[in-house]
Structures are given as C-alpha cells and as structure tokens.
C-alpha cells in the first residue's frame, strides 16, 4: 500500500528529500521553504528557510553535499548549507544568494549529478547554469538563451553532468550542452553528440499537438529522453535511431515524470494519479497506474470526469455540494480534512499532482517514487504495484 501523508491544507508546490529520506524540504505555496523531519509516521516542521520574497517555485536537495537550492518568482535562487552558528555553535541553514541575472520568475531548479552545478529554468527565455566561484565565494551563472522562445518550465540533467534537457512553453523539448570550462572535464561522446561547447543544441523536439512541455527526463543511461506536454501526451525520443514514440492519453495532461528504469517511466499530473509507461526502442505503451482505486465504485473513473458521467450523477458529487450549500446552508469544502464521501475523488491524491520524484533505489533501478499534490499530500508509491487501468485499457501490456 502507498504511504500517505497530509503535509498541509495548502498546495505542495515542490518537494525534495535529503539523502537518507529522514528529512524533506517542501514549498507549501508560500515564500518560505519548510524542512520537515520524520517522527514515527508523521512529518514535523523543524526549520523554516525564509529569504525569498515571492512564491518558491522549486526546491532541490543535493544528496551528497547536503545542500538545498531554492528558486522563486522573485527571480532569485539561494543555496542553503548547514553550518554551525558562530555564537551558539548550533547547526543552522545559511543561505547564499546566487546571481541569476534573469528578469522574470525562476520556475524550476535541479542540481547536476556531481552537485558542482545547478540549472535554473526561468520565464526570461533562459536557463541559468550556475557554478561556484571559490575566489569570490559566490555562485555565478551563465545563461543558455538560444533558441528558447518562451518560459522554460522544467530541466533535467544527463548523468554525464554536461548535457541538460529543458521543456519550454514554446512547445519544444530541447537538449543543450551546459559545459562549463572551469568546472567540467571534457565529456566523452554520447548519443547526443561529441563536440559540446556551451549552448550547443543537441536535440529539439516539438510536442505533438502544440502543448507546453511541462516535464522532461533523461533515462538512467542518458541515452533516451522523455517529455510530457499539455496536449495530454508523453513522447519518448531515441536520438540514435531517430525514433520518437508518442502516446496520446485519454486523460488530463501530465506535469511531472521520472524514469524508474531504462524501460519504464512514472508520470503524473492533472489526472491526480501516477501513470506507468513501459517500452523500449521498438515502442511504448501505458502499462497502468499505481493508484489502485479498488472500491465499490472502482469501475467509474474520477467523479465528475470521464465517460460515465451521466445526468444522474448530477444528484451526487460537486453538484450536490453546491446545492446543499445554497438551499440548506450546509458546506463541505472539497479538500478539507474531512471531505464528504460524495466530493472525494477515488484516487488517493485529491487534486493535481505537482511533482513526481525518485524515493528508493535498488541496484540501478528505482523501486519507490514520491508525489506531492495541490491537495497538500505527499504519497510514497511502490513502482512495481502497477494496476491496469479499467475499461478499454484493461488489456494493456503489464511489466
């Protein structure tokens, strides 16, 4: 069974665990980042990281160097490092400002695999590649600009620490070289190219029906790229054989994805449940979902959505909630601590899933993933517990 935690009554914009998974950094849709510590079966807020003066959009916790990077709509990013306080000697999180040189909101941030660089996506049609300058003791950035035409929504690093994938609101997913001479060794050739000076474009792929590219991800080997876009589709790109596999979903768009092995992906978004895709260079398909909605109503998809929504359903669900509020003064706000049975979705998450991240590894593969949602929940899923989707997808291939 998935582990379910309710972190807050506000949306969880972004979440990231520390290396041993005992602590969790979250942005609860506010200007502050919270560090939560696991105590038994609960997450207790222990530290507040306040420095940003607008909404924090993304957080990433580097597992080896134990540094946290946060970025925000205030166009800044901070690197937080745990250091002893000069007076008391207690460990506190010290922020370092990063000179991003962008004039629009920062949208997404990720440490590189070696944790010596990080990439900040932004609304300024640019991605800031930041590296540490020991002489001046600050983080400096170099901007990837061309040929980005709109806001960059997500970034993901290739395992070689040099290549970077980016998904953008100009409906394209791209692979760039983020090679920084002072930091990186000369990378060995990959399927994406061999000569890789900064800002080399190693690949550019359009979303199939004009949707913003919400999520990008390299496979564990780095040889395959997946991207999910707002036209309810997910595409998997093999640069070698020029093969692009696109799956058009019958459901709402995905906004976040993570590879769990070389041949499977977990992705989630507006449909409130994580979907599993599996395949290889020959072809990809939807394998099912991790959210087993086995309940008396399981044959029905989410209330209010999907095929079986008939006129009869108006008597229940959201309609009844508003009618009761109107005629009898009763209120049951969806998403509150005790939603009535009628307004509760069949899925575990009660609203859009904002982020999917790896949680537990075994060998080279990921065995558990965590998701955070607009409903304030954090859920940890076993990626092998795949359930076929009901109905016409029942015959889908299962791994």
């Amino acid at each position, binding site marked *: 069974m998935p582990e379910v935690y309710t972190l807050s009554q506000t949306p969880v914009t972004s979440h990231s665990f520390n290396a041993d998974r005992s602590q969790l950094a979250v942005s609860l849709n506010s200007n502050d980042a919270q560090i939560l510590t696991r105590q038994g079966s609960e997450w207790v807020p222990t530290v507040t990281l306040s420095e940003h003066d607008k909404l924090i959009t993304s957080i990433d916790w580097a597992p080896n160097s134990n540094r946290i990077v946060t970025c925000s709509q205030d166009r800044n990013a901070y690197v937080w490092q745990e250091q002893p306080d000069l007076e008391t000697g207690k460990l506190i999180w010290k922020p370092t400002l990063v000179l991003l040189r962008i004039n629009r909101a920062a949208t997404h941030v990720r440490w590189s695999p070696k944790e010596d660089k990080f990439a900040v996506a932004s609304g300024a049609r640019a991605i800031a590649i930041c590296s540490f300058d020991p002489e001046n003791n600050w983080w400096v950035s170099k901007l990837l600009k061309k040929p980005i*035409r*709109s806001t960059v929504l997500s970034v993901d690093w290739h395992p070689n620490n040099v290549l970077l994938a980016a998904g953008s609101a*100009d*409906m394209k997913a791209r692979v760039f070289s983020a090679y920084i001479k002072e930091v990186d060794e000369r990378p060995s050739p990959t399927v994406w190219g061999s000569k890789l000076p900064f800002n080399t474009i190693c690949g550019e792929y*359009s979303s199939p*029906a*004009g*949707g*913003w590219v919400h999520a990008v991800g390299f496979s564990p080997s780095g040889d395959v790229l997946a991207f999910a*876009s*707002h*036209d*309810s*589709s997910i595409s998997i790109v093999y640069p070698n054989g020029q093969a692009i596999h696109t799956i*058009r*979903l*019958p*459901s*709402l*768009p995905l906004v976040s994805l993570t590879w769990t092995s070389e041949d499977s992906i977990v992705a989630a978004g507006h449909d409130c449940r994580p979907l599993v895709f599996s395949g290889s260079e020959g072809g990809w398909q939807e394998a099912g979902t991790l959210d087993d909605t086995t309940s008396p109503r399981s044959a029905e998809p989410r209330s209010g*959505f*999907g*095929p079986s929504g008939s006129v009869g359903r108006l008597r229940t669900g959201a309609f009844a909630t508003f009618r009761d509020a109107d005629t009898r003064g009763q209120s049951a706000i969806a998403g509150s601590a005790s939603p009535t049975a009628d307004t509760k979705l069949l899925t575990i998450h009660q609203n859009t899933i904002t982020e999917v991240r790896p949680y537990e590894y075994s060998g080279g593969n990921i065995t558990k993933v965590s998701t955070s949602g607009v409903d304030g929940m954090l859920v940890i899923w076993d990626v092998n517990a795949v359930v076929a989707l009901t109905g016409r997808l029942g015959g889908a291939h299962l791994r």
Partner: protein
Amino acid sequence: MDNSFRKIDIDIYDEDALRDDEIYETDPRDPAEVLEDAKQRQGAVRSLLAKNDIPGALTVVLENAPYGANVEEAKMITLQSLLTILNTTKSTEITGVVKSLSPDTQDTLMKYIYKGMAMPGWGDISGSVLLGWHEKLTEVAGVGCIVRTMTDRRIV
C-alpha cells in the same frame, strides 16, 4: 472613454516577438492546392456517403485537413462536407464510427466539432447533432482529446 489604444498591435514594436510560424509548423502546401484538394474531397465524400461508408468519408475529409492562415475557403468547404456527414449519420451508429477512426482523426474531428459549435446558425449546423457527436467522441477518446483541441495551434 478612449480605448483605441487597446487595438494597437504592440508586437510590431517588439523585435523578439513570437510569430505564429514559430509556434507551429505551417502547412507546406500552397493555399490554392489546399483549396483544390478540399473541393475534390467534397466530391469523394458524396460518393462515399452514397455507399453509406461513414468511417471512410470521415477519414477522407479529416486526413490532412486544412489548417493555419490563408486557407479560409478550404476550411469552410471542409466544414461543410463534414457537417453533411455528421448530419446524415444515425445517432445509434456514432459510437461505432468514432471507434473505427485513428487517434489523429479523432483529434481533428473534435476540432471541427468545436469549430461548428463556435458558429451557431452557419450553414446547416445543428447544435444537437454536434453535441451528440461530442458526447460519443469524448466517451471513446477521453478528455485528452478535448485538451488537444484546446492546445493545438494548427487551427482548422
């Protein structure tokens, strides 16, 4: 109040403005060619309808349907042919017909249903027929199909 300033095209003062052809791939075909093609399809649809081959007629009219700028006439001819098909199909047959279409064709069909609903009273548009098709198409292709209609800039 003077609100003519709202009509000013501010994009022409921005050297870096995003143009339509950067957002989507424009149709490589010449507008005249597209128009000729649409007219030919109109004939093909009539003969397929005479044989009562509705999936065939829909595929003919929806494959490589005109999109983008400068092909308004071709778009209207295509819409006209499509409406003829939709209006002549028996409501009990719709689900079967929709299931037999390819996912691409389903997406294009959804675009035309929305185009039709946006032009009430034009030609022989019937709201109830369009809503009937919309319901059946959503049952088969899911809400993802509607999402793609909304995001796709290749407007029919």
